Every structure is written in C-alpha cells, then in structure tokens.
C-alpha cells in the first residue's frame, strides 16, 4: 500500500510541532520580557514637564544640592517636590521674566499648583520610604541615576520588584557615607563599603510587608 502521506509531510509536521512549541514558550516568555523591557518600565523615556526644568543647569552650573529642593528626603517617605515659593526664592530675582517659567508665575499668582508629571511611579500597593534609605546610606544616584546630566529627567532603573530585591538582599554595594548621599560622582575606596555596613547596620529585608501593606 502506498504511503498515505508524502515524505514532505514529515518536515511539515516537525515545523508545525516546533512552531507550536515556540508559540507556547513565546506566549509565556514574550510578556515576561516585555514587562521588563524599557517599553513597559518606562525607562529612558524623558517626560515632558509644564516647565522645561533643566537639572543639568541647576545641579552642575549652579551647584544646588538635591536636598535644597527635595528637602523631605531625609525625614519623610516622600522626597518632596518644591513648593512654588521655593522656586521663587531665586526666580523672583533672576530670570523672573523668562517666558519659560510662565507656569511658575501663574502658580504664584493664583495659588494653584504646578502640575508636574511623575517620572518615578511605583504601584499603589508599594510603600517606599525615602527617609530610611537615605539615613542608611543609599544615595540619590543609586536609584535616580545621573540626574545632573539630564535635560529632562527620565527613569534610569527598572523599578521592578526584582530590581528592589537585588539591593534588599545585599545592600552593601550601594552604601555610601551619609554626608555624600547627594553626590553624583562619589566612588567607594576599597573596603570602604564594608566599613560603612558595619557602621550603618543595613538590614536585608525581603519579607513582603517591608513594602506591601
């Protein structure tokens, strides 16, 4: 009896089986890869702000420390975005008639807030606290990147749970002296971080209620 199927069907079957296997793996892997890709995490994506605030100029040219504007980072969960009146501390004297800060002048006049767009956004079920990280020697640059080199601030790190856990499992490589928290360029001397770990006693906290409440 002649073969029911011609020989090419063997190849076709292998291709179909391979495609099915690939589809199954792909169906699982694709969303996982996607969720970790900058497209989903929002990394490297400059956010348009109502005022084209340039951190490069304020941090590098003017030498303003991070904590001058984000002053609550050492004592509150939120680092804080400066009130209009903080901006006006300088800008009622200098560049006070520039068209680009019109929203600032409007805010001062009307008392309504400037509507800044959030760059680093965590889900509502995550409770991150700036103060304890800063006090344990985690610097701004570790999570926010070289803000001093950004014209428009963008998210540098993935901000996924696995990224948080990387540091929560072993915080030592990210430690720095408290007095250099805001430095964008500090690099550890050999053995310095082990010494800091002894002083600051950072804990490795990986249980769920550390962040989820």
């Amino acid at each position, binding site marked *: 009896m002649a073969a029911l199927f011609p020989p090419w069907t063997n190849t076709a079957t292998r291709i179909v089986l391979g495609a099915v296997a690939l589809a199954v793996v792909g169906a699982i892997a694709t969303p996982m890869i996607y969720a970790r890709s900058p497209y989903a995490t929002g990394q490297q994506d400059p956010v348009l702000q109502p005022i084209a605030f340039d951190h490069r100029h304020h941090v590098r040219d003017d030498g303003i420390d991070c904590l001058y504007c984000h002053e609550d980072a050492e004592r*509150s969960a939120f680092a804080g975005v400066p009130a209009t*009146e903080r901006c006006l501390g300088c800008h009622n004297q200098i560049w006070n008639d520039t068209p680009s800060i019109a929203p600032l002048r409007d805010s001062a006049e009307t008392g309504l807030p400037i509507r800044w767009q959030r760059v680093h956004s965590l889900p509502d079920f995550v409770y991150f606290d700036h103060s304890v990280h800063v006090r344990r020697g985690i610097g701004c640059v570790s999570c926010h990147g070289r803000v001093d080199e950004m014209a428009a601030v963008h998210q540098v790190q993935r901000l996924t749970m696995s990224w948080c856990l990387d540091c929560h499992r072993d915080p030592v490589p990210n430690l720095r002296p408290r007095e250099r928290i805001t430095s964008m360029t500090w690099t550890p001397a050999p053995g310095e971080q082990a010494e800091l770990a002894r002083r600051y006693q950072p804990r490795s906290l990986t249980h769920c209620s550390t962040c989820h409440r």
Partner: protein
Amino acid sequence: MSAMSHDHPHEHPGPGPGDDDDGGEPGGLDRLSRRALFKLAGAGAAAAGLAACSSRPAREILPYAGQPPEVTPGIPLHYATALVEDGFATGLLVASREGRPVKVEGNPDHPASLGATRAIDQAAVLSLFDPQRARAVTERGVPAAWPAIERMLADATARGGAGLHLVLEPTSSPLVIELVGRLRAALPAAGVTFWSPFTPRSSIAGNRLALGRPLQTQLDFRAADVIVALDADLVGDHPMASAYARQIADRRRVVDGGSAMNRLYAIEAGYTPTGVMADHRMRVRGSQIARIAAELLAELQRGGVPAPAAAGRFAQLTAPPDRARWIAAIARDLARVPGRSVVAAGERQPPAVHATVAAINALLGNAGRTVGYTAPVVFEAGGPSHDLANLVRAIDRHEGDGGGVTTLLILGGNPVYTAPADLAVADAISRVDRSLYLGLYDNETARACRFMVPGLHELEQWGAARAYDGTITPLQPLIEPLFGGRGVADVLHQLLGDPPASPRDRLVQAWPRAVPGADLEAALVRGAVANTALPGVTAALAWDTLAPALAAAAVMPAEPAQADGGATLELDIRPHPFVHDGRYTNNPWLLELPEPTTKLTWDNAAQLSPATAARLGVGDGDVIALTIPGTGGAASRTLAIPAILVPGHADGAITLQTGFGRDGGEDIARGIGGNAFRLWTTTAGFHPAARAVALGEHRALAIAQVEASTGDRPIVLSGTLHALGGEAFRDELAGHRGAQPSLYPAFEARGPQWAMSIDLTTCNGCSACVMACAAENNTPVVGKRQVQNRRQMHWLRIDRYIGRYPGGTTGAGIDAASDATAVVQPMLCQHCERAPCEYVCPVEATSHSPDGLNEMTYNRCIGTRFCSNNCPYKVRRFNWFDYKDHRSLRVLGKNPDVTVRDRGVMEKCTYCVQRIRRTEIDARVADRPIGPEEVQTACQQACPTRAITFGSLTDPQAPVVEHRHRPHSYAVLHDQGTVPRTQYLARIRNPNPALDGTADGAAGDRHGGHG
C-alpha cells in the same frame, strides 16, 4: 447584561442601603441566567485582554504653591478638637494627612476620653465626608440664595423678636450661651427651646428632689470597690462612658488569684455592655427598678446603715422572695465598704429613682467621695426651656390671638423625628410660614421647614463646649467647610446684627470672656483647659422633698423579677449605641457595626427574652405589631417591627432602640428599621402597657453572629477570682498555652517579635476597636444583604457567646436560656507562628515575616480562598465585590498608608503593620531603639478599657511579656497547634460568695450550653 448594570456599584450612592430587593451590587448574580452568564464571561475575557493593553496612567505631582510650614507631605499632623453630642464634648486628636482628616484618636488630656474613643467617634471621618450631606441653601427643596434668609432674619428681629422662636440643641458652649443671653436681652419677645431626646433630664430632676437643687451627678470609680448599676449603662450609654469604662476596668486588672477586683452588679432589662462586664447581672423590667432601689435602701437601713427618722416607715419594705437574697447580698456588700461604692441609676429611670439613689449614696457615705454633684453642664438643663412642648404651645397660640410664632429657626438636631409621639411637632412646624432648618442633612425636620441651610460638621468648626465634668474643650476645624455650611453661632450673630467676621476671629474675641485667664492657643494645643471641671457641690439630703418620693416608691407593688403572665408588655426605649437618636444613621460604618449584645446590623428590632418570644410565638425576624394605647382621647400608636431574641433580657419586656425608621432625604438611613420615637413619650423611658401581636410576617435580619455557643471548644475561658487562686483552674489554664508538637518547620525569627494580649475581663464589647480597625485599615462596608451572606469585611470582630454560670443570673432561674450570661471576645488574626493559612496558599500571598507577622500580600493574591478555609479562627475576609468606592467623596477619608484592596483579594488583620513599619522607620532614621509601648495598634489605641496590649516579646520592658506570664493567659484553640501570637487573658469574675455557687468551685466556666 442589564441585570448586572442595574446593580453596578457606581450607580449607587453608597454600599448597599439594605432594602430587601436591592442589597447592593451582588443582587444581580442571583437572577443571572445561564445564557447571560456566558455572555458576561465572554465580555469579561475580552475586557481582560483590553485592560492588558492599556498604558500606565499619567500621574501628576502637585506641590503646594505656598507650603504651610507645619506640613511635611507624608507625615501626619494631629489636631485636638472634640465631638459634641447632647451638649457634652469628647476630646479627640484627629490625624490630618496633607489637609485631609483621616483618623480620629482619643485625647489623653481630655477627661471624657482619656486617650480612648467610642465607636461613634471613630466613624466621625466618614460622616464628615458623607456625599449625601446637604450642599446648598434651599427653599422647599429648590436652591435659594442666602440673602433671602438674611432678609427673613432681619424681619424677625423687627418687633423685639415677637413671633420669633429658636430651637437649639442643648448646649454647653460658653460662646453659644453668651449669644443666647444677648439674644434674650435684645429680643425679649423671642422664644428659645433646647431639644435633644437623650440629654440628662431625669437625673437632674431626681437630684432636685433629693438635694433640693438641680444638680448633675458625677461619678468616680477610682475608689469604688462595689458598683451597683440600676438600669444604668455606665460603660456604653453615658457622656462619660469611655472614662467610666477606664476607671472601672482599672480596678479589674487581674494579675493572679491574689489581685484585688471591684465588684459590679448590673440590674437591667436589656443586655448592655455594663451587663457584659458585670460580675452579677439581674434582669428585671425597667419599671421594677424604682421598687428595687427602695428595697435596697430599706435593706441597708435594716443592716444598720444610719438614716434619719424621716426615712423611718421604710424599714418594713421587703423584696419579693425571688430577689430577696440578691437585695440582701448587695446591701451587705455595700455596707461592707462605706464610702467606697457607687450606686448609679440610668437616665431612663424616673426622678424618684435618682432621688432614692442619691439617698443611698449619701447614707453609704459615698457622696463627696465616689459620687459628686455639680451644677449642670448643659445650659438651663432641667429647666423649662428644655421642654419641647413649649414650642408646640407657642405655635398653637398663633392661631388664637394672632401673636405666636411667625419665624421658626431650628438650629441643629432633628426634632421632627426625635420629638415624643405625644407632641404633634411636625404638624406644628408645618403651620409656621417662615421656618428655617440648619443641619447636616436634608432630614425630616429640613423637609418640614421652608428653608434648609447646610450646617457644619464638628471637624469643620471653630467653637467650644464642655465635657460632662465641665472641662472647657475648644473645637478647631480640620478642613474648610466642604459645602460652605454655617454654624449655629453664625446664624445667631446674623440675628443679632453683628458685623461679619471669620469663625476663628469670633472665637478669639469671645474666648477671654468665656474662659477668663486661659490662653486659647495653649487650649487648642492641649484640647482641653485644665482645671475647668465644675467644682463639686456639697448638698445635704432634702428630706422634705425626698421623703414623699421614697414613700411613693415604698408603696409600689412588688412584682417578681420575671413575672411574664400578663397581656401587656413593658416597652423600654433607649438610644442605639451607635446611631444614637438617628443623627448617625446615614453613616454606613455605624450601621454595619454589630450591636454589642444582639450582633444585629443595618436594623433595629424588638429585643425580647426567649421566654417572652415563645409566649408570643415569634423567633428572630418574625414581625410583631407593638401598640401603645392612646391616652386622653389620643389614638393608639402601632409599630410593626421584627423581633430578635436576646438571652438574658428581662421577661415581659421589649427593648427598642431609636435611630431607625428614618424618613428624611438621606438615602442610606431612609427606610431601614422602625421608628421607636413613634412609641416614645418624655414621661419615662419605658411604657408599662404595650401590646404585642405576632403578625405572621418574617423580615430577614442581618445578624452578624448566629452561633452563640462555643460548643465547649476552648475558645472563651473564664472563671472566678477565687478559682484562679487555686491549683485546679490554674492547671486547666496552663493546658491552653505553651509548646505544641508540630510537623511544620518553625519560621526564622529575627528582630522584634510582635504579639498581642487581650484581657477578656475588662472587654465589655463596646466595639470601638472594630470601628477603629475599619477606619485605620480602609475595610469596606458590604451592606445588609452581604452581612446576611456572612461576607462582612471587619478584620476585627467581637464574638458574643452565651454561657451559663452555675447558680444562674438571677439566683432563681426560671429558664436556663433566658438567664444565660453573655461573654464577649475580640477575634482577629491570631498571627499563628505555625499558621495553617500559609501552608495552603498556592502563590505564597500569605507568608510569615521574621518579626512574627502573618503577612497578607494583596498584589499576589489570586483569590483561591484556601487560606480562609484552613483558618480555624475564621478571621480572613474575602473581597467578593468591588468595594473601592473611588469616585465617592468618602475616598478622602481613606488611610493613605494602607492599600485599598481590589475585588477577588483576601485580607485580614495585619497587626497594623503600617504602624509597625512606620515606627521602625522612625526609630531607624533617628538611630534609636523602639520603645516598649511605642507601637500601638488602632484597636489598642481606641480601647476605652485598655483591654488590648501590644508589643514585642523580645523586649523585657513590654507589658505584653508580663501578660504572657500571668496564670490566666491562654491561646484560643491551643489544641490545634497553631501557636497564636495573640493570647487572651481569661475572663475572671469576682462574684459575691453569698450569691454564686461557683465561688468555692475550683474549675472554670463553660460557655457551651445555649445553641
């Protein structure tokens, strides 16, 4: 699709208002056909696919334009203010998050709070953010302009106030009192009436009889060894309930069998938290209390307590046989501790009872020690201006002589709803052409008046009031008036023609006159002005007025305590513990909070004893028609209301709570329960001749706990103080704690080890903790229908079990079920060290933290509910529906530190992990250790009796460690091997050996009897 969209949550003003055919969102599921289900499933799958495609929502950061110097985003601020009820202030500290009040705590510096709160106080935030509050000035329901009212007020002052009548709530505010004084001087023809149904009247009249002056009774339990509560709910229904509960509990803290305890006797009709706390509880109808007080006085005299000759003819009075042993035992107990006891009568009792009680306290030497008297705190309390009949008379005069009332201003309260049924107040108000109502809601009174003006919630007000002891308490707002409301003082100032000023400026101006020598800023910081409690008055017994009152009591017929043969029943009307006189009925938190002893939610019902119910042939939910015969030609009044059986209720009596059967514009309050005020008259809190007939209808009640028996499982352990001193009971208790063999691995413990201890001896079931937990943890309200489905979401519940103590409650028990005694037990996640829930979760959404918490991670949960099925304590709660309520004004009151859970997610008590982590972070930031009592859970902080203790087992200074070493510390269901971190201190009673058969017994009690 239509079946579902009809019940879509967003189309509802709030969670299920509880009418029977529409119990909130889930109603549609029952009516869903198979075909509709498939359609929905298909649409749901498609929607799920679409949802996955949505990009993340753009989010904004809105900094302040000018940041107030005291505000740091993320750090709560606390402001001292007060809630005022019936004229009495309770001091509070309210947490504000970036300008939003989110949580109420007690003010430790305030005498009515002592740091604790009532359930009502905890729910204040939800009332503030109630989307159904009145929002605009209206005239007959149509938006109107304020100038029209200004013109009306100007007209009313034209003829020296002739034709003007004001109705205010009873007030203790020095500012309002000053304004009323000015008003009476400027407009001498104007009438002023103060009305609130449950402001103290009878006690003040009774003191006038006994002491010759209208005085307010002040109790002090700190030195009281024996307390007799005669129909007095001292720890539940009293302006000082929180403080009194603390004082009584402070004398009931058992460390071991050698501890000293006070002894509390409760003699009452319905079951109250005071009755729960009592060592001995006698159930009698309210009308018998007068006779019992007289019998007690007579027995004391026979026992040798000296009394003047004027009380002489009294000595022959004896108690009927079934309670003679009780009266004799109580009298001996009282005489044993002269000057160190308190006898108290409830406000429902007639003045003669209060007079008798004043005499007893004087003869026992209590007056001036544990019982004091002060001038009344409420302005003109007990005076003629507090009689609502004045208003009706004033309006009726109108028709005769053309004078009377042409302008009626009702500033607060809800007199149309709360008026005694024998006064036709609604009818009278409707005859006044120019009437105005100032209040929070478009309620019954607002609808009877021409103008409605939105009022102010306490958390929006500047002002002042006095606590029950007289302490001056300033009020300050937490938020600008949400709907532009006006205060009572604003209207009075307008009436007096004062120039406009801000409420704060008015307080600043009036303060030096109101409270001379006290700094307002300091008072606002502290929340009370120290040393402004009213001075005690020493008053001798006025025998010429007292003796006739006593003589009247002495000739009262003595009915046996449990007589229940007659055709008529006694109707006892009392305020609901949570919605009070109806002012809080639109607050769904308070409606869903189970009533402490009946566990009824979303309703009121006719409470009656099992024996009386059997005689009427009714069970839970069977509707009875209650009829009060008309007097003096008036028609009889009838109320149809479902029955609820209360073991321990007096036979032959029915207790009905007020606040329900509302008929105003509030959507949640309207139409639930029955209006007890329709059967209420001012003459007494009970009506002796009500008739009850079973109607043969059934109305399903939402009772939060239907199983009243522990089935002899080791859940609630209790015993006597005497037994605790002996080996047998101590050994039995020791068998309920300690290590248990287990196959499961222990968790890896690091850092502090959090644990809780709950003292069942001092818990009275007041439920403040339950409300505090809901406010702190954003737990949703599910509605009546879902309570009936056992789907309520309270993380902390109070279980009430019915037990029997050998010897019975009344000495000669007629019926075992009726004579039963209730015990209460707060039940929450026990944070088991070997937690059964954790082993069965397929996605590790529930896990153990190194500091001993059983964690629940909502974002991992997929809703299998295996954990709940495996929990022996049944403390896990599942979000069957979407309760997020994101588009409502109520979202402003949510705690930003706690995730608002989504549909399909399991949740449960976290030991207030957000507070633990906050404290840990604060301590780490400051490089200091955590203090032994630094972390307080929300339930612990609210508890008036401090029954809840929380701390770390690794801290030897923590009180919770010492609690673990007490002989009566035990773990619930210890035999399950779960090793719970929450342990209980067994309920210890201090019975009078002369009354209690178990005083000599060595073993603990059983709570298994009634099922």
